[in-house]
């Protein structure tokens, strides 16, 4: 295989991964929007958070080839986080595609010195926008009574709240009362502030990577870094 073909194949693999990655993010967002508790804000949060790996791959195409490995790691980490559902397997597809693309390079990608620890660290950080939506338990209780259906906070219903490192969620059944009331609490909901923080984290992350990760033309050439 000629060098030119290798380079073209590598690029096609990167683009294929980007398309799959964005499609996955869009799919999850649409699914969230269609779910019982999905809102535009939560769907946007999922879209942005899950778009981070393909966005990194996209940025890597602009003179940041070493970012591709990071995008692959990020997709792997996010895929592992989503592995509780089948859809998580789809998240591994771009990770594999980008790994193959990085292996098909004609030469090792130019990377900053700190890349060896920055890459796994930054890749792992892509789960933060997702975790922030789930680690804080803000159960909402829907109370139906004679005055109709109202949503009450966990404080009013005496449900636990706060940070929950167990990644768990809980829900309660409903209890009917003489007033015809029914109470049902769940911690599965993503409240607006969590979604907003998630989107902000994602945006900040992407901006920082673009600003701080040097382009290849500013790095020493590969041979300079070898002895």
């Amino acid at each position, binding site marked *: 295989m000629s060098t030119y073909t290798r380079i073209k194949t590598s690029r096609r693999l990167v683009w294929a991964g980007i398309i799959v990655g964005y499609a996955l993010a869009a799919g999850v967002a649409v699914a969230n929007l269609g779910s019982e508790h999905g809102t535009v804000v939560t769907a946007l949060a999922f879209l942005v958070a899950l778009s981070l790996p393909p966005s990194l791959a996209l940025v890597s195409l602009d003179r940041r080839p070493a970012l591709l490995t990071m995008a692959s790691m990020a997709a792997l980490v996010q895929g592992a986080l989503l592995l509780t559902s089948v859809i998580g397997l789809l998240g591994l597809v771009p990770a594999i595609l980008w790994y193959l693309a990085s292996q098909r390079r004609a030469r090792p990608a130019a990377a900053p010195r700190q890349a060896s620890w920055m890459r796994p660290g930054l890749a792992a950080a892509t789960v933060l926008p997702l975790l922030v939506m789930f680690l804080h338990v803000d159960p909402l209780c829907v109370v139906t009574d004679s005055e109709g259906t109202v949503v009450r906070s966990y404080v009013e219903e005496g449900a636990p709240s706060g940070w929950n490192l167990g990644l768990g969620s809980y829900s*309660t059944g409903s209890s009917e009362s003489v007033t015809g009331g029914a109470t049902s609490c769940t911690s599965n909901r993503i409240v607006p502030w969590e979604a907003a923080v998630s989107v902000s984290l994602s945006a900040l992350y992407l901006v920082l990577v673009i600003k701080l990760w040097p382009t290849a033309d500013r790095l020493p050439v590969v041979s300079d870094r070898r002895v």
Partner: protein
Amino acid sequence: MTHDEIQDRLEAYVDDRLTREERRAMDAHLEQCDECRQILDEVAPVDISGLGPARFDSAAMKRAVRRSMFRTAVNTALLLLAAWIVVFFLSVLLIQPLAVNRGDRAADAVRMSMDLTEMLNPGLVLTDGRIESGLLSREVSLDYALPVGAGLRPTPGTSMTIGLFGISELSTADPRFPVVDEWGVQSEARDRLEHLGDGTVATVVLRYESPLTIEAAQQTADDPGADVRVIWAGFDASLGRELGPTWTAAGSLGHGTCSPGEPLPDDMLGATSAGFGGVNLFSRASVDRALDSVIAALENIDSRPELVSYVVRPFDDDPGDVELILDELRTHPLVNALVVTGPTPSVTEFVTTATDSGATAEVMAVDLYNWTDGLCGR
């Protein structure tokens, strides 16, 4: 970009050092130029752009060695992390099925949950069942329906979470009474009362102070001159309320709460929790005893289905509910009897309030608790 300029940039092309515009121009040229592609094949594997005069730089060597050691350490850490992730997932995938299904306890508990639901609802039809696996647990959800008229009416389902750490949750949203269903607002409750038949004049005398059995109530109700309406106030939710806001049928049937340190009953099926905390211990004997009593009571009522017209369940921590119940009953001319079950604090309060308020309805309490006396510490 000229042919020579293209060739000057081949190194940068391989290293991704070109801007998008330059790269596009290179791509377009390379697509057509065999000579440039050939040169590219030659220069790509060997990076000559940084070559200078041969020299030995000891400082650079030290830096390289340090960098290499650092990389090795990082790679080792990453490898260990990856190994941990693999071991974790394998543990979950392999151990969970073994642990969750250990012995017959989980299966017994699920079966008991189904038995409870089915035995307390004659004619109940299981319409859907699902087992959803999570990382550390499996949730069994069962949906039921009751035949009503020509069709089926869904009832609240049963769900149980079985995990590595035991049976962590059992919730059954009152599937026992055909009249308990989706009515959600007070107006609907009133509608139901409106549908009671005319001419309900009899009184069932049920006294809390000297608890009567359902049979005794039934004997009174069987008086041919009486057109009886029993308002079933339902099982009290105080146990669930003590532990949390979730009321569980199993939580109020045959539960036994053993003190810490007491040996558990030999036939304990498992532990369940209600709501946000608390644990109930279930033994087969206790549940069987509870079921026998409840079934006996319900069979009596089932023989006169018109007796059960309306189901309410008070929240034990809200005295206002009691007032609402009494108001509802008091203001309706067709309602004249009330059955309350469970000698729990809330029921006691309910009865006291009812008596103090001079309600025309009299109240019976059937002790559906405390079947487990003596079970703990056996």
